[in-house]
């Protein structure tokens, strides 16, 4: 085996002896230990992980715990604005943030397809380390499995997360009340459109990038400022529309949205027009909706804007009305019903 061939100048972390993942890298023997020592531990190093126990032993801070898990299977692995690694950290961190929790610890499970370049894994691990640092969360335990060539699609990642709730609010759909306003933290549609365009080989005049980002800071800042948040929802798969229908249904209330108030970037709108998509249904990875009493709206918007949510806006209200119904006042002043996404969004044909 030629050990020199694998030197890859673009790889940010030290190289293992093989340029690609072999089945043996998941076998529990020396190759697996070398992979962990050369790729995983250096990227994620922290005192808890460094104990190298079968599990992480964690001190329990005061407060309620939030616990969540998510799996990431995005294709392609790398896209403008992020990669599967940033997604795997921010996605789980954001799920904790939507409980009003401060994320503390993550686990990560890699399911790697045989043949994946180790440089690719290193690049993803580096992204994860950077995203974890930005979100102030530690990766304290993990797992690596390898599946045969053709049995996976390069790399799948699962992350689970624990966060601590350091306040008395009960942030969940059941806490939403008639009279609440709905704030949106930013413009919608960028992540899904980025992936879609990349997959279909479509290019636009201006580059659309994923909005993948951690949402912890703006959420915790609102809570710290005493905003009485009733519910939070990050608007991932199914987009804003599906998130609103889910909450209206669970809360047994009606939601009324204002189309003009919903921020959508011009390039995103243009791409949606071309591809026949409705931005309301497109996935986001750095955008959330907050339900709170109207009296807190102005202050909450101010806080959001001070925490990088420059496009934050009040987009609607909650009423007693019909349980589970979501309506929207369109840009021309008529009203339409917003339903949950059905199947995939498919493009128009003429």
């Amino acid at each position, binding site marked *: 085996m030629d050990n020199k061939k694998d030197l890859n100048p673009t790889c940010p972390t030290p190289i293992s002896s093989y340029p690609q993942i072999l089945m043996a890298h998941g076998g529990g023997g020396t190759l697996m230990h070398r992979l962990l020592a050369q790729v995983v531990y250096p990227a994620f190093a922290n005192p808890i992980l460094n104990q190298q126990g079968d599990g992480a032993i964690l001190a329990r801070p005061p407060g309620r715990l939030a616990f969540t898990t998510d799996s990431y299977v995005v294709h392609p692995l790398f896209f403008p604005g992020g990669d599967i690694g940033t997604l795997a950290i921010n996605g789980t961190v954001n799920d904790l943030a939507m409980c009003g929790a401060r994320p503390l610890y993550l686990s990560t499970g890699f399911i790697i397809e045989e043949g994946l370049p180790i440089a690719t894994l290193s690049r993803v691990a580096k992204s994860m380390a950077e995203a974890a640092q930005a979100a102030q969360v530690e990766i304290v335990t993990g797992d690596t499995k390898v599946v045969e060539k053709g049995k996976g699609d390069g790399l799948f990642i699962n992350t689970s997360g624990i966060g601590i709730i350091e306040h008395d609010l009960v942030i969940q759909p059941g806490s939403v009340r008639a009279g609440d306003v709905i704030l949106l933290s930013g413009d919608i549609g960028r992540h899904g459109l980025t992936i879609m365009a990349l997959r279909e080989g479509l290019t636009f005049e201006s580059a659309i990038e994923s909005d993948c980002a951690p949402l912890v800071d703006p959420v915790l800042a609102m809570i710290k400022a005493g905003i009485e948040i009733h519910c939070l929802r990050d608007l991932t798969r199914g987009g804003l529309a599906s998130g609103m229908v889910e909450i209206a249904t669970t809360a047994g209330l009606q939601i009324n949205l204002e189309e003009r108030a919903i921020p959508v970037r011009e390039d995103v709108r243009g791409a949606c027009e071309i591809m026949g998509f409705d931005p309301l249904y497109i996935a986001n990875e750095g955008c959330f909706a907050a339900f709170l009493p109207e009296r807190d709206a102005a202050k909450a918007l101010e806080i959001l804007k001070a925490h990088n949510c420059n496009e934050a806006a009040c987009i609607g209200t909650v009423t007693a009305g019909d349980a589970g119904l979501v309506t929207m006042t369109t840009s*021309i002043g*008529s009203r339409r019903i917003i*339903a949950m996404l059905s199947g995939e969004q498919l493009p128009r044909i003429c």
Partner: protein
Amino acid sequence: MKFIDEYRDAHIVHGLADRLAALVTRPWTLMEVCGGQTHAIVKFGLDELLPGGITLIHGPGCPVCVTPLELIDKANLIAARSEVIFCSFGDMLRVPGTRTDLLTVKAQGGDVRMVYSPLDALKIAQENPMREVVFFAVGFETTAPANAMAVYQAHQQGLQNFSLLVAQVLVPPALKMLLASPERRLQGLLAAGHVCTVMGYREYEPLAEHYNIPIVVTGFEPVDIMQGVYLAVKQLEEGRAVVENQYTRSVHRDGNPAARQLMQTVFTVTTQKWRGLGEIPLSGLALREPYLAYDAGQRFGVSGLEVRESTDCRSGLIMQGVIRPSECPAFGRRCTPDQPLGAPMVSSEGACAAYYRYRPIAG
């Protein structure tokens, strides 16, 4: 956004609604031909802005909806073959055939790919010389030129592994059938702007005259549609029946001669079966010599199919404008976009899907 926002201007739309209200003296029933128009009407709630007495009924202009069941079944059979890469527009993937749909064929191992253009399928054929690449050529006069171009280029390049499963239909013969029907309710037509962009509107002039019906070539944005309705109602109120062009920014009387020429080079007009409407003389396109070898139906010998339409689906009546989607007993109950009984519930341009997405069930 330029070229969009000015046609979604609330002020202009409401102004047109006011002018329309001032104009109307009695009830009128209009049909918007194209499914794209149906979606805009329901999405923007335009029919709510119309004065009482003006009724819009939804026409057959959804290519997915009118593609006959036999062709969907043929597509499913061809797509399941191991040597085939089956390329289709996204809308066709979930349309139920007799037993299955293309998404299920894909899940069972068929190589089914969603493309945005027949030329993408042509490229796939060039890149995969050992595979048979089939494109599902569905659509009205709008998609025909690009489909013709794909075959034309394949022929020029001597590409042997490319073929079309042709399901092309033509609008005017179907309109003629609707206008001649004894059940006809419609008094004015909004013709499909995109179809006329290709074909022009000369062929609509004898229809307007013979059936004494105003036909307004209309675009797809709220201002377009309100203007189209206004022009049609104005003609009705004044007792006129001619072809007018609202969509002047895109449509000329002669259409796009280069596109029409290409269609005529590659296709010949033929009798075609429409799902829900039945057989309509001279309403479809088939490949002609020297392009017959690119016909996927012949290449893969798919014939003798047993065809069973869902007895619950009333899409035929819906596409003739006899009933509204919400008047179908299965609507929103046994038939939803996730479990469609008929094609109009699947396509982004299907009237049933538009009603389901934007209207409550009681609507």
